């Protein structure tokens, strides 16, 4: 009973049109898309489990990304480089993500049915707290061990922190070049591995609980499932994966925009997922992969297309922002499964007794 999702088709059309207008070569686009795939792949995959558990889009993945950045800043502060530093940053980030995930999950259990607006606000709040700590606390309450990242006035981390210590530590492994396009096989496999882990988890008793809770909270409760704990677990998993995804992202880019790197992760990841044909209620790995390709391809070609067609590259940029927000708005407007007046209605054919 798969309903035909027009969103992916629209994206394909837009991509093709944009590609033609931009005049960029296919090789260039493929290269860029591959890089984005490994950079953002895990972050998009992090959104899958909360959707399966019926909690909609987890906009609080921003908090997982923030946790990763905290880990990275701590490591940079102590000037630990190389793979060891990366690993340590990851550990710190994951620990923090688990704590944050539990808090978010606990809060979301109080707003069942309105999770998405809550996660967006939590994302904003977390971001502000993070900014406060590192802009006003670092150097003052938190002793600084690295003068390089400290602002000249003595308080606050610089806007940009160079991550040369672990730039591209792992993503240059096993690069295969084919037809002008570079494929960093190790990283691609890493993304596939994460996808595999998610598929595996959905095939465990825990995954069954996620599915049951995602379909119908009340019935899952009657089946003996601890709905609240299951939901918290879904959010924790999601946040941890987001943290991992941000670490991969940062080591690929090679520098950290301390106050802005995490800002639009939730929007772009969810837009990408939805572009691949996922909905607020149902999302799979294939949607994630297809979505990243389509969404980022459009992202890449838009400015140039705007320049060529309208003489204004900014138009292309505005257009792609609109596409990102618009995709999410569209997904929220469509697919309203539960009618407003009947909170626990039986499905249409249910009570039709003989």
């Amino acid at each position, binding site marked *: 009973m798969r309903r035909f999702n027009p969103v992916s088709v629209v994206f394909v059309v837009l991509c093709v049109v944009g590609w033609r207008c931009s005049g960029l070569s296919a090789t260039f686009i493929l290269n860029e898309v591959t890089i984005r795939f490994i950079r953002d792949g895990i972050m998009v995959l992090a959104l899958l489990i909360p959707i399966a558990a019926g909690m*909609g889009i987890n906009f609080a993945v921003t908090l997982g990304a923030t946790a990763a950045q905290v880990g990275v800043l701590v490591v940079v502060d102590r000037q630990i480089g190389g793979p060891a530093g990366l690993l340590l940053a990851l550990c710190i980030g994951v620990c923090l993500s688990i704590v944050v995930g539990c808090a978010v999950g606990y*809060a979301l259990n*109080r*707003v*069942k*049915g*309105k999770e*998405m*607006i*809550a996660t*967006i*606000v*939590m994302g*904003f*709040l977390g971001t*502000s*707290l993070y*900014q*406060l700590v590192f*802009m*006003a606390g670092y150097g003052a309450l938190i002793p600084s061990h690295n003068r390089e990242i400290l602002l000249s*006035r003595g*308080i*606050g981390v610089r806007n940009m922190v160079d991550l040369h210590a672990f730039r591209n530590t792992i993503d240059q492994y096993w690069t295969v070049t084919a037809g002008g396009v570079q494929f960093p096989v190790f990283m691609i496999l890493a993304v596939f591995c994460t996808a595999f882990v998610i598929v595996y988890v959905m095939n465990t008793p825990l995954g069954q609980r996620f599915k049951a809770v995602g379909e119908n909270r009340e019935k899952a409760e009657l089946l003996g499932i601890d709905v609240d704990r299951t939901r918290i677990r879904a959010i924790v998993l999601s946040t941890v994966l987001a943290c991992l995804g941000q670490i991969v992202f940062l080591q690929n880019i090679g520098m950290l925009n301390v106050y802005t790197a995490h800002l639009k992760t939730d929007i772009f990841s969810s837009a990408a997922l939805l572009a691949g044909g996922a909905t607020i209620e149902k999302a799979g790995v294939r949607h994630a992969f297809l979505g990243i390709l389509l969404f980022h391809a459009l992202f890449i070609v838009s400015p140039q297309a705007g320049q060529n067609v*309208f003489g*204004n590259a*900014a*138009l292309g940029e*505005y*257009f792609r*922002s*609109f596409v*990102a*927000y*618009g995709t*999410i*708005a569209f997904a*929220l*407007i469509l697919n*309203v499964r*539960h*009618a*407003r*007046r009947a*909170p*626990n209605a039986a499905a249409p054919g249910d009570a039709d007794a003989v």
Partner: protein
Amino acid sequence: MGKISARARAGGFHPPQIIILSFVAVMMAVAVFLKIDVKTILGDSLVRLAMNGVLVLSLVPMFNAGIGLNFGLPVGIVAGLLGMCLAVNFRITGLSGFLSAMLFSVPIGVLSGGLYSRILNRVGGREEIAATFVGFSFVCLMNLFWATAPFGNPVMLWPIGGHGMRPTIGLQNYFGKALNDLWSVSVSGIRVPVGLLLSFCLLGLLLHLFLRTRIGRALQAVGENETFAALSGIDVRGVRTLAVILSTVLGAWGICFYAQSYGFIELYDAPLMMAFPAASALLIGGASGGRTTIAQVVLGTYLFQTTYILSAPIANELLIPEAAEILRMIVTNCVILYALLHRGGVREA
């Protein structure tokens, strides 16, 4: 199951109010201690009350109709921006410029509000998050418009190239501060913008009276108990549409008040996050359960804006200048999050 404690229901103070009140009291004490000029602060707070107050007022119709907090306020704001641009384009200055801006915003607000309400009527239960993204998308869509807009007045356009609007348009020669300066009086060193305050109060009064008319009562009923309203013969869909259009038009007027007071029209991404401080102000005033009064709007806006004003000099002295903005964001989001958690999720049968 979101329950409001009996104490709060009885008309007392909610936790957000208590927190903010104590926050403001502490900040005032600190300000006095740091010898910051309190008189200018008071004068400023009155201006900011009216300047931001209309935006907060605009949230009331939708909130009372049970549609939740209007995070799609950017839709109304954009309508207002268009209205103001038209007024500037036609080179109308002074108070008449301001009033024409408000006039032009009305049809635009009604049209976009109508469209917006159709979207909201579809989403049932998810209005707030859908409104957020509709608002965001609309702002981004308008960016395309601003970048190619066919307005004539060079003051609005990029100096180089002459194509596309400036992100910030100065209103000194048009209606900037027009209302602020109207009938402004000095009372023992505090500058009281009487004209501005009066217009804000007038709008507040009109809204208050509207809520007591027949259709206003229908709106309150829809907000309190939609099933009851439907059973009582009220056209629920129509009332909700009216509430959304009203909120949108008031939002448009709200940005007119804001811009004339600030002295600049800010285009492009400026309206993106404007809904959140307004929502926060409403919640601080004690709004809950769909029975917001105008008094709550005034109280909430005043407290919120005072926090804003006090935060800057205090942050300057104690922390760092940027901390002020961050603190404001924290306060805003904390209040909204608290309200969301307190209200609970979808009401169970």
